[in-house]
């Protein structure tokens, strides 16, 4: 897979159409969220307290953040690109994702496809990054529009600063985790990727695993995680065609609630969403939104509202007479693929395909059990694990059942063992040893095999055997 990310730097400023000549900053919660090049030259930075920014640039022009304005202004760009490439998806206002493989196939080369795409969005300043995975493409776009050759993701990422992970919100990395990684002395993604994934995961959990996966050039999202049931979509045909933004917002909330109720019933979360509207002119408009993390109901409603606003404001399409939102990609919540370690990229591809065939949890990575083996001694452990319901009966020479006494000894001398219909003569056995407070184990040799038996609920259970 090849992904192309189209990044529009300082999109909130481009959307606000304030011109980038003077120092301008967009703010929210008393902090700078975006600033113009002129403001940057004066030392203003993203995340800076407004007070400090004003001190650095006294004539700084300030605008409140308005995600709706950002999205509204972004829709015509995405719509314009629909004319030249198929499958344009929105990661966030200011960042588009395009299937680079398909585009390169159509235009015969990635370079030519990029040229045509950049021409299509011409007046707007933007950078196109191409790489093997979506997160790498997003980083490549931010690095000034780099085309990362197939298989070169790791080498490219190794040189990128760690801070990239938080600068691009579409990567979905937690700022607190990245800050902690920086405190450990990590400066580049290469240094992060060199750490063992299991160590990063055990220290920083899923958030750390995500950072590590992105730094290693992997897509932390499975290509196909769970089959998407068809009936998750929600549709509404309003009594009166939607012409105003407030009516669109109301419809968006209702649709989001309906979809999320269905997702909750199915025990799934949505990471890719298609929004479709039918206009009074009979035209059908569709836009796909792609997110790094599962959408909450509110985030879904926001995206639907922004999208409808974009269509209504762009004009020319008339009132909306029908709306439909459909989750395209769903995951099981908390599903953390690769939690148990790393694998080569081709390995990951094969795993994705097997998961597509068998379902998301078919491929497992074994981990050593901690504390399960106690008192077995230093010899080889049993090589086969028995079914948890495998009961056996031990008897002495007079066919009396050999059981465990309260003093942790065997009552009787084991002579034979019955496992299902099989009968084995016992040739050797150990004294029982306690495991925890209620359980005890013995090893016995019978029928040419050795068995590890567990005494539980007044019965012998086969835990494993050689």
């Amino acid at each position, binding site marked *: 897979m090849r992904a192309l990310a189209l990044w529009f730097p300082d999109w909130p400023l481009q959307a606000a159409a304030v011109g980038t000549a003077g120092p301008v900053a967009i703010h929210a919660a008393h902090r700078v969220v975006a600033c113009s090049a002129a403001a940057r030259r004066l030392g203003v930075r993203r995340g800076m307290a407004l007070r400090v920014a004003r001190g650095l640039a006294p004539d700084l022009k300030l605008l409140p953040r308005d995600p709706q304005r950002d999205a509204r202004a972004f829709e015509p760009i995405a719509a314009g690109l629909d004319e030249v490439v198929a499958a344009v998806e929105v990661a966030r206002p200011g960042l588009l994702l395009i299937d680079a493989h398909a585009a390169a196939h159509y235009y015969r080369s990635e370079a030519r496809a990029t040229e045509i795409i950049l021409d299509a969005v011409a007046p707007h300043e933007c950078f196109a990054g191409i790489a093997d995975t979506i997160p790498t493409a997003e980083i490549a776009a931010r690095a000034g529009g780099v085309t990362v050759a197939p298989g070169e993701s790791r080498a490219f990422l190794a040189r990128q600063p760690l801070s990239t992970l938080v600068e691009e919100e579409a990567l979905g990395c937690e700022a607190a985790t990245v800050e902690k990684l920086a405190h450990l002395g990590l400066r580049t993604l290469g240094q992060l990727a060199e750490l063992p994934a299991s160590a990063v995961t055990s220290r920083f959990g899923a958030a750390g695993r995500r950072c590590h996966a992105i730094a290693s050039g992997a897509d932390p999202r499975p290509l196909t995680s769970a089959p998407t049931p068809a009936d998750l979509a929600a549709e509404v045909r309003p009594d009166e065609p939607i012409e105003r933004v407030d009516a669109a917002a109301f419809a968006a909330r209702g649709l989001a609630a309906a979809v999320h109720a269905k997702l909750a019933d199915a025990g799934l979360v949505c990471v890719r969403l298609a929004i479709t509207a039918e206009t009074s002119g009979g035209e059908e408009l569709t836009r796909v939104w792609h997110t790094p993390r599962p959408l909450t109901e509110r985030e879904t409603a926001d995206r639907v509202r922004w999208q409808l606003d974009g269509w209504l404001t762009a004009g020319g399409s008339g009132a909306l007479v029908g709306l439909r939102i459909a989750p395209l990609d769903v995951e099981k919540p908390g599903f953390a693929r690769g939690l148990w370690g790393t694998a080569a990229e081709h*390995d990951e591809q094969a795993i994705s395909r097997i998961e597509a065939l068998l379902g998301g949890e078919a491929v497992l990575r074994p981990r050593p059990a901690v504390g399960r083996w106690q*008192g077995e001694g230093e*010899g*080889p452990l049993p090589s086969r694990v028995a079914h948890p319901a495998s009961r056996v009966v031990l008897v002495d020479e007079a066919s009396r059942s050999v059981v465990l006494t309260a003093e942790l000894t065997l009552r009787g001398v084991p002579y034979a063992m019955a496992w299902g219909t099989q009968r084995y003569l016992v040739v050797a056995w150990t004294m029982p040893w306690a495991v925890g407070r209620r359980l005890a184990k013995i090893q016995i040799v019978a029928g040419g095999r050795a068995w590890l038996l567990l005494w539980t609920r007044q019965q012998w259970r086969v835990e494993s055997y050689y």
Partner: protein
Amino acid sequence: MNGTSVREKAALIESLRARIPTAAPQQYVPVPDSPLTAYLPHAGLPRGAVTRANDCALLVVELLAHASTAGGATIAVVGWPELSYDSIHAAGGNLDAFIAIPDPGSSPARVVALLLDAVDLIVYPGPIPRPLLGKLRASPAALLTLAAGATGTTGTTAEHRLRIDGRITAFHGIGAGVGRIRSIDLDVATHAGDRLLRRGTITLGKHPTAIRRVGERRT
């Protein structure tokens, strides 16, 4: 034969053995540093071919443990939920090298086919369908099966370039109400086609000091 020539011979064998992996670096998944190593031609399992082991999980565990650590192979285990990964870990195996597909559903052969280009060694206890053998020949993976023949063949083992049989002959360290299993004796025989390559006994376990041999009980 005097002592010097024995030493010379040993040195010669050693130097020849050292050249084996370099002579055929690509065609075998190495299984180094194990008592089994000496039983395997080119000290490994052939890539692009089926190796058949008998139903002796202990032998397979020993193979996998050493292929995954010093051998550095990536390993997929398909459709064998009983295999104990703890025992592989205890035998020195590197579990990071493993993926497991305990339930390959109704199309295990398809799952194996998908893994052919992804891992060095695939373990699948079931019979190998014929169409898979063709794909296997063109792939870099070694396939280890526990089944007698390919499906559709009448018990022939012609497809198996290598056959490894193991049989537990003794558990050491355990007696009548005493001790713990400390080591296990395994009779091993390897065949290439119908030709016997090597037969012998290996001892697995950290303390191969025989406290008491427990073979069969006399009644």
